[in-house]
C-alpha cells in the first residue's frame, strides 16, 4: 500500500490567465482509491488530462512506476497501463454497447487483424462478462446513442476497465446517475475494481460516496491541492466543509 504508482511533481498549466494547475504535487499509492473533490473549474479534469497525455503541463513532471510519462501520447500511456473514463462519456455512438466494449477488449491485442470478426467468441465473451459485472447485460445490444445518461457513464467506465489498466482515472463517474441508484452502482464498480486489483483515482461530487469508498481525498481549489488525507479527517476540516459542501448543493 505504500508503493507510489503515479507521482506528479510541480505540475503547472495555465490557459491564458487561468491557472488550471498551479504547482500540483501528488503521489497515488498502489492499490488505493483516491478521491478528488473540489469546485467546478478547480482543475480536476485538467489533472486527469495531464496524467493521460491529453494535455502537456507547462512545467513539472509525472512519473508512472518510476518512469517519466510527461510528453508521452495518450496511446503510449494507455499501453503502460493507465486508462481513463470521461466526464462526458466518449462512446462510439453508432455501435452497440457490446461492440464498444469488445472494441476496447480487442484493442489490447492491437486491432490489426483485418479478416477475423470483432465479435469473435473470445472478445464477445469477455465483453459480455464485463457487462454482466457492471449490471449492463440488458443494454448490451442497445446502440450507444440511445442510452440514458447513467448507462452511458457506466458503459464509458466499462470500456476503460476492459483495457485491464493498473491505474484507472475516472472523471465524475457518478454524475448523471440517478441518486437512488448511485450507491449500488458505485458499490458494483468498486467491487469490479477491487477484484481486478486496479488502483483508482476518481473525481467525485457526492461526499457520501467519497466517505464510504475513498481511502484518501485530495481537495482541489484553483489549480492547487488545498488538503489531502483520509476522508474522516479531510471532510471534517472546517475550511473544506465551507468550500466543498457548498459545491455539493449545486453540483
Amino acid at each position: 500500500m505504500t508503493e507510489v504508482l503515479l507521482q506528479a511533481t510541480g505540475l503547472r498549466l495555465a490557459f491564458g490567465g487561468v491557472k488550471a494547475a498551479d504547482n500540483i504535487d501528488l503521489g497515488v499509492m498502489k492499490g488505493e482509491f483516491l478521491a478528488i473533490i473540489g469546485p467546478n473549474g478547480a482543475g480536476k479534469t485538467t489533472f486527469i488530462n495531464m496524467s493521460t497525455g491529453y494535455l502537456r503541463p507547462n512545467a513539472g513532471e509525472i512519473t508512472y512506476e518510476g518512469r517519466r510519462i510527461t510528453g508521452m501520447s495518450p496511446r503510449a500511456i494507455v499501453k503502460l497501463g493507465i486508462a481513463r473514463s470521461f466526464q462526458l462519456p466518449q462512446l462510439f455512438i453508432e455501435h452497440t454497447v457490446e461492440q464498444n466494449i469488445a472494441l476496447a477488449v480487442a484493442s489490447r491485442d492491437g486491432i490489426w487483424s483485418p479478416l477475423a470478426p470483432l465479435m469473435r467468441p473470445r472478445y464477445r465473451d469477455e465483453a459480455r462478462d464485463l457487462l454482466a459485472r457492471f449490471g449492463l447485460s440488458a443494454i448490451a445490444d442497445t446502440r450507444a446513442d440511445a442510452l440514458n445518461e447513467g448507462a452511458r457513464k457506466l458503459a464509458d467506465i466499462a470500456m476503460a476497465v476492459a483495457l485491464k489498466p493498473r491505474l484507472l482515472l475516472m472523471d465524475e463517474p457518478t454524475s448523471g446517475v440517478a441518486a437512488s441508484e448511485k450507491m449500488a452502482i458505485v458499490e458494483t464498480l468498486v467491487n469490479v475494481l477491487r477484484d481486478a486489483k486496479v488502483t483508482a483515482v476518481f473525481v467525485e461530487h457526492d461526499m457520501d460516496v467519497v466517505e464510504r469508498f475513498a481511502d484518501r481525498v485530495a481537495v482541489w481549489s484553483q489549480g492547487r491541492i488545498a488538503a489531502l488525507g483520509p476522508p474522516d479527517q479531510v471532510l471534517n476540516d472546517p475550511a473544506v466543509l465551507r468550500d466543498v459542501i457548498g459545491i455539493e448543493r449545486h453540483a
Partner: protein
Amino acid sequence: MRRYEPILALVLAAAMITAAIMAPWLRFVLTIALAKGIAVVGILLLLRAGQVSFGHALYVAFGAYVVAFLAPRLNDAVLLLAAAAVGAGILGLLIGLFVTRYRQIFFGMLNLAMSMVFYSLLEKLYHITHGSDGIRVEVMPVAGQALDRVAYEWSIFGIALALAFTVGLLVRLYLSSPMGEALAGIKTRETRLEFMGVPARGVLLSAYVMSAMLGGIGGAIIAMTSRHVTPLLAYWTSSGELVFIAILGGAGGVLGPFLGAAAFELVRIYAAASFADAWQLILGSVLLLVILFAPGGLWGMAARLLGKGGTR
C-alpha cells in the same frame, strides 16, 4: 440483412451475365459498371470513417494510365491489373501519409487538389501522355492467352466480375473486423480510439491505401475495356461521379457500390440516348430523390424490401 448479401450478389451477377450474353454493348457497359463499383467500394471504406474523398478519380486514372504506359512492355491483362493495384497502393500511401492528417472538408478538398494536380500533369506533359488526345490500349493477352477481341472482352468482363466478388467478400470481412470497426469509430469518437491505444491515423491510412488500390484496379479495368485513356479520367467530375455512385448505391453494405454503378451506367446510357442534353438533369434529380427519400441508397431500399431494417 447481411445474411442476404451473398444471395443478392449471386442474383445480381446472374442478371449481369444474362444481360451481357443478350447484348454485347451491355457487356461493355456492365464491365465499366463493375470497374466503377470496385473503385466506389474504396469510397465506401472512407465513408465508414466519415470521410469523403472528392479526388478519388486520381487513383482510377492512375490505374488506367499504368495499363496504357506499361502495356507495350508488360503485355498481359493479369500482370497489368496487379501492377495498377500495387502502383495505386504506393501512390495512396504517399498521398495518404499527408491527407490522413486532415478530416472532413479539408480531407475532401486535399484529395480534390491532388487529383487536379495529376489531371494537369496528364494534360500538360504532352510528350509522355499525349495530353487530352490520350493513349490507345490494344487488345492484350490474358494470363498468357492471346485472344480475339470478343474472347478478350468476355475475359475482362469475367475478371471484373470475379474481382468484384473477391473485393466485396474481403471488404465485408474487413468492415466487421476490429480494424474495420475501429475505422467506423473514427467517424464517431476518434479521440477515444487513442485513449484505447489504437492509432486512429494508422487505421485511416490503411483504409486509404486499400481504397487507392481499389481505385487503381477499377481504373485498370476501365482502360482495358474502353481501350482508350484520357486525362478526363482524373478530372474532378469523375471523382464526383464516384461519390455520386456511392450515395446512389448506399454505403450500408458492399453491394451498394455495385448496385449504384450499374444503375448509374444504365441510366446514363438510356438518358443520354433518349434525352441527349438532359441526362445530367435526370441524374441530378435521381440523386436528389435518393438523398431526400432513401438516404440508405439503393442498397437501403433493397434492405427495406427484404424486411429487415438495419444495414450494418
